């Protein structure tokens, strides 16, 4: 089950905790994997750990030209692009009343606009081959909201609406577009939350623990697999019961 042999995948944000685990899970299922991120060193280290089917493609997702070029680079490196995982994301938290235009715009640009551009760049080849998997990593806060994260929540909710619209358009071509919405996952990004924020969130998790990056990677692996071909436009919430939606 979940055999990705012969499939080529691009994972953004692969230098991060969740992205790295997603890349590992796809690789372990047999896929060739292009690892993208802003920091080249951790990407190289991960590629070395994985093996010969891993490629490193550094990219700054706030640079529109670099984003547009990334799917092409992935296709050059691997021969095709069958699975796209838009995992990269940034936070620039601030109270709504204090949020600057720059804090708003930079989060929308990296989290939402780059996802749009990468999807667009990946679609051509997927349409031709009549097979494709796009998996966008959203967030529980896109559905529930979170104080201090108006920009981030907007970008993640935007991703869901965008994914559903695209899913409609390309379903007849064998391409599925889905979201995975992680809850509270132990990574460098959640370490930025203060103890009060962490405590409040922890109290609300029925599973009474944070999730792991591996648990997100497993959801992505399922949606990437041939077995999930009838699942499209969905958001798979992986949050320990924190929000049952």
């Amino acid at each position: 089950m979940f055999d990705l042999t012969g499939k080529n995948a691009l994972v953004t944000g692969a230098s991060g905790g969740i992205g790295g685990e997603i890349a590992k899970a796809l690789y372990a299922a047999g896929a060739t994997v292009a690892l993208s991120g802003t920091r080249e060193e951790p990407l190289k280290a991960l590629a070395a750990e994985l093996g010969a089917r891993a490629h490193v493609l550094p990219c700054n997702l706030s640079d529109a030209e670099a984003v547009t070029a990334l799917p092409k680079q992935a296709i050059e490196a691997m021969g095709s692009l069958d699975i796209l995982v838009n995992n990269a994301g940034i936070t620039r938290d601030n109270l709504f009343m204090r949020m600057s235009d720059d804090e708003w715009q930079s989060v929308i640009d990296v989290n939402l606009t780059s996802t749009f551009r990468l999807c667009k760049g990946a679609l051509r080849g997927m349409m031709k081959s009549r097979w494709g998997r796009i998996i966008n990593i959203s967030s529980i806060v896109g559905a529930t909201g979170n104080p201090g994260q108006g920009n981030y929540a907007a970008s993640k909710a935007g991703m869901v609406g965008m994914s559903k619209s695209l899913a409609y358009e390309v379903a007849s071509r064998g391409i599925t577009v889905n979201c995975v919405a992680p809850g509270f996952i132990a990574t460098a990004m959640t370490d930025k939350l203060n103890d009060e924020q962490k405590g409040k969130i922890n109290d609300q998790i029925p599973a009474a623990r944070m999730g792991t990056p591996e648990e997100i990677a497993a959801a992505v692996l399922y949606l990437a697999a041939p077995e999930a071909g009838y699942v499209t436009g969905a958001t798979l919430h992986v949050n320990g019961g924190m929000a049952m939606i």
Partner: protein
Amino acid sequence: MSDIADRVKKIVVEHLDVEEDKVTENASFIDDLGADSLDTVELVMAFEEEFGIEIPDDAAETIQTFGDAVGFITKAS
């Protein structure tokens, strides 16, 4: 009929699975040949590859009929 028209017709016939004699000068991809909007995007992609040209999005929107396609590609290539 020109070589370009023949090649365009071949793509249209294959992609939309229509009879060759239906693909006339004024035949609209959507209204006459049963294409949906995504088919028209795919046709433009196929034309780009067949003829080695770039068809920008605003130009692609003006290609509604077989004749439009042949006319645009003749000018572009």
